[in-house]
């Protein structure tokens, strides 16, 4: 169920301002790809264009193509809602629905779309998703409790479980650990390694060690100066990016000389 993403000549605009320029890259299925780069370089914006979540931001628009196994996300007649149910997303801050229990949070994608699901199927789905997010053991006795009662790291894994429950092909993660302590971060990183077996995972991170630990491929984004659009500088195997980058600016960034 994992799929390949191909991005061709993608530009992202906020109104008249060009935020990301001319990105072309290929993301392999069943792999973890990390986006790194300094703040404001457009990596989060670019991530959002991979499931059309940028459309939530007023004035944001895209030129170019994003193909999911050959199907263009921006083709005519494509419904962003369909795109999002096939390409899930996990956000910087854990955002479980405060009005729902843990169980209902996991089932949110199914129930909010008013799909009929039998109680036993729902139980299966909840267990499968929570196991997939390494959370089942911790919460199986309190599925009816509100999700907001969990710790930050648990909430983030609940959000991952919620994303998995929709059975997407790709999971996008926008700095999923930036609000977490080191222990919770490790739990999420372990989980990402697990997810790789079934999904295409794309992760934006500020933490270069994290990128080095979890990803096979890394894309480095940079920005020439204030008011300039962000660009994809270098995209290759993670080991190459960190050990012998082709570009000077990549080397400067990964060696901590700026950013």
């Amino acid at each position, binding site marked *: 169920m994992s799929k390949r993403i191909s991005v061709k000549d993608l530009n992202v605009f906020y109104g008249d301002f060009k935020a990301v320029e001319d990105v072309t890259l290929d993301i392999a299925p069943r792999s973890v790809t990390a986006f790194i780069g300094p703040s404001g370089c457009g990596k989060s914006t670019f991530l959002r264009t991979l499931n059309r*979540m940028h459309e939530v931001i007023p004035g944001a628009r895209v030129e170019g193509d994003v193909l999911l196994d050959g199907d263009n996300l921006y083709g005519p007649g494509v419904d962003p809602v369909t795109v999002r149910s096939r390409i899930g997303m996990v956000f910087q801050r854990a955002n479980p629905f405060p*009005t729902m229990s843990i169980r209902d949070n996991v089932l949110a994608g199914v129930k909010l779309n008013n799909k009929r699901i039998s109680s036993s199927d729902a139980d299966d789905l909840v267990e499968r998703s929570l196991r997939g997010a390494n959370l089942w053991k911790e919460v199986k006795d309190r599925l009816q409790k509100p999700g907001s009662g969990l710790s930050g790291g648990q909430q983030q894994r609940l959000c991952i479980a919620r994303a998995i429950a929709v059975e997407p092909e790709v999971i996008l993660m926008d700095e999923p650990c930036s609000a977490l302590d080191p222990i919770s971060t490790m739990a999420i990183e372990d989980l990402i390694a697990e997810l790789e077996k079934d999904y295409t995972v794309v992760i934006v991170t500020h933490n270069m060690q994290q990128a080095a630990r979890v990803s096979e491929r890394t894309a480095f984004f940079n920005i020439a100066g204030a008011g300039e659009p962000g660009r994809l500088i270098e995209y290759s195997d993670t080991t190459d990016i960190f050990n012998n980058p082709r570009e000077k600016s990549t080397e400067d960034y990964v060696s901590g000389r700026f950013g």
Partner: protein
Amino acid sequence: MLKVDAKQHQSQLTRNRLPRFALLAVLFPAAIAAAAAATLIGFNVVLWMVFTAVLFVIGAWLITLLVEGSRHAGNRMIRYVVYGAFILALIPLVSVIWTVLERGLPGLTSNFLWTSMSGVTGAVDNRTVAEGTPVLGGAYHAIVGTLQISLVATLISVPIGLMSAIYLVEYGTGGPLSRAITFFVDVMTGIPSIVAGLFAAALFGMVFGPATRTGFVAAVALSVLMIPVVVRSTEEMLRIVPNELREASYALGVRKWRTITKVVIPTAISGIASGVTLAIARVVGETAPILVTAGFATSINWNVFSGWMASLPTFIYYQIRTPTSPTNVEPSDQRAWAAALILILFVMLLNLAARLIARFFAPRTGR
């Protein structure tokens, strides 16, 4: 030796500060002088207290001026003025509530709650006064009318107000239309209630012929007053729902309208419900619009779409202005204040309910 030293040594930091007893030393002469002044005009307690307060403030200002200087004197003066203003503002509150309780409680009987004014004429009241029997007639019809009119007004206002607020927060992105709606909702909050009543009367008068007066017309008038309140409070509540929740829902492939109805509104529902309750509390006591739209009835009317209808506020108004028996006004007075007590209880209960809803049904958003 030590003790003497302590006495002689005055801290640099407490120099030129008034000791606390100095103010008491001002209060007593002020009270005595005030008593004297009040006696000159004709003594009464209120006058005495007012004079005492004035003289005390002036005296305290003077000695602060002499000891601590003009800056501290000014500060002290303002402090007293501010405290005085607060007490002044509480006087009418206490007085109104006291008046209503004192005059309303004797008339608050089960007979009053469960009978209407049907068949209660001036002659009945005259006999009651002459024979000293309990007052007949009650506000049942008015309570029924108020409940019906408020219910219908709520049924009209809540969907419109709620949907408009959703439009403003979720769909209108600062375009000219949403700016216009926001502006005119603000303007609408300032419409005098009597004008809202006139509008409903004029509207139904043109469509169904002049002098069309029913509970429904009154409900429309109240809706004009209620909608902006509902819009404003709902809007505020929707805006504090974190955007992250909307995004989380979109990222699951949920449609916008389902995101709004299943995620955004449930998260804000306690605030919305509380705002709606306050809006009801605001219109339930409105008198002027009902006066010009629902007419006045002395018997129970269960049909909001036909016939004149009584309500608690208009009942109070007519019982005071045009007593049932012009020669013996006491029974009407008693009925008016008992109705006022019921109305105040209604409003207070609604206010209390609003606060409780907001407190206890709020989702646990703690992270």
